[in-house]
């Protein structure tokens, strides 16, 4: 369990490093960008390979070394995450349970009035 968590933390830290620059990085450069400096070269390489397998990182040959870059920006992944969360109609909708969806039009006006009425009766809790 702890190893899994540690690996997860490391994947995240390494993605942060990759997201911070525009150019593809070698394993050594990634290691240098991490706050945790005493990591073995092979450990960082393993995690980068895992990220590549999951599709989060892309790697390309540069002479004798591999260079890694993120497959998409952080914002793109956040958008993907939230799109599933906000999507009401798609097949994915059963995968998670939303609290509520924002509405528009006549219903939004009704809700706004209701909220004002409640708040009028004693203010925000």
């Amino acid at each position: 369990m702890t190893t899994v968590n540690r690996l997860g933390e490391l994947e995240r830290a390494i993605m942060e490093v990759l997201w911070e620059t525009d150019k593809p990085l070698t394993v050594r450069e990634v290691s240098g960008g991490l706050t945790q400096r005493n990591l073995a070269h092979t450990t960082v390489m393993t995690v980068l390979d895992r990220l590549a397998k999951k599709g989060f990182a892309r790697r390309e040959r540069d002479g004798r070394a591999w260079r890694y870059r993120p497959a998409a920006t952080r914002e793109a992944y956040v958008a993907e995450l939230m799109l599933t969360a906000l999507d009401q109609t798609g097949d994915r909708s059963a995968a998670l349970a939303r609290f509520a969806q924002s509405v528009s039009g006549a219903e939004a006006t009704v809700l706004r009035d209701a909220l004002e009425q409640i708040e009028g009766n004693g203010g925000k809790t």
Partner: protein
Amino acid sequence: MPGLADATLLAAVALGSVRGASALLRASWPRRSPATAILLWQALGLAGGLAAVGAFIAVGVAPRDSSVAGGAAAMAARLANGQFLQPRQPIAVTLIQAACLTAGLALLTLLCWVLILAFAGVLQARRRQRELLALLAHGDPKVPGALVVDYPAAAAYCLPGLRSKIVVSVGTLDLLCPAELAAVIAHERAHLRARHDLVLIPFTSLRRAFPRSRVVAQAQRSVALLIEMLADDRARRARPARELATALLRFGTSGASFAPAGALAVAEGEITARVARLLTPPPPLSRRAHLAIWLAAGLLTVTPIILLTMP
């Protein structure tokens, strides 16, 4: 032809389930006792599906000297022996029976297949969510026990499963006060604890099987709303109903768009229904009404099973 009585009864149960579904959609009591209404929905779905499949197969395997299930087994054995034609039977009857048998098996396959697909799709989507959350989400002292994603719009949801998670966006933290946040988390936790997702998935898959059916679409939406009401009720035990209601209203109005007035003639929306229920809770059904509905649901489920297995 002997054996068609069962087929007629099964067809009646199937049609009755559709009728029952329409009646349940119009009924106003479900919001008073959502759990009982969900149970009835499940019974209607199960009985309707079993009876429809069974009716076709019953016609297909008549005449028979045992139950429909036994007749189907005997039929399968006969077909496996290469004996396709019943002795002394007009060819037209055999063709009709073959068509019914095919329809019954096709329906059964479709129902099972969409259910498998729905589960597979859900598991895949959840895995992707967990992968992304591992890279992007962080904790926040404002919402202990939940993951926070840096996203400006309001979003709050839970990811059911063995490693369940509750996720809120930064937009949600800005939108709600701490008490409202706690109410939202209590609501999501209720979903996770009761595994409401498992209740909803069969109805979602049914919708995929019959995308044009209005009754199926409305039934799925109705069950989804009843599940939300159930989680609202559970959350209300731990948090004041008012906080949950204002959280719902803030969520509902968080979309920035003001549509032109009167552009959409909205029937009572889901949030409106949930808020109304929280602020003025309708009295739950009487014990006697509960019993009657449970009994009806039980009978409804058992009837097609008896018709299929009794000679």
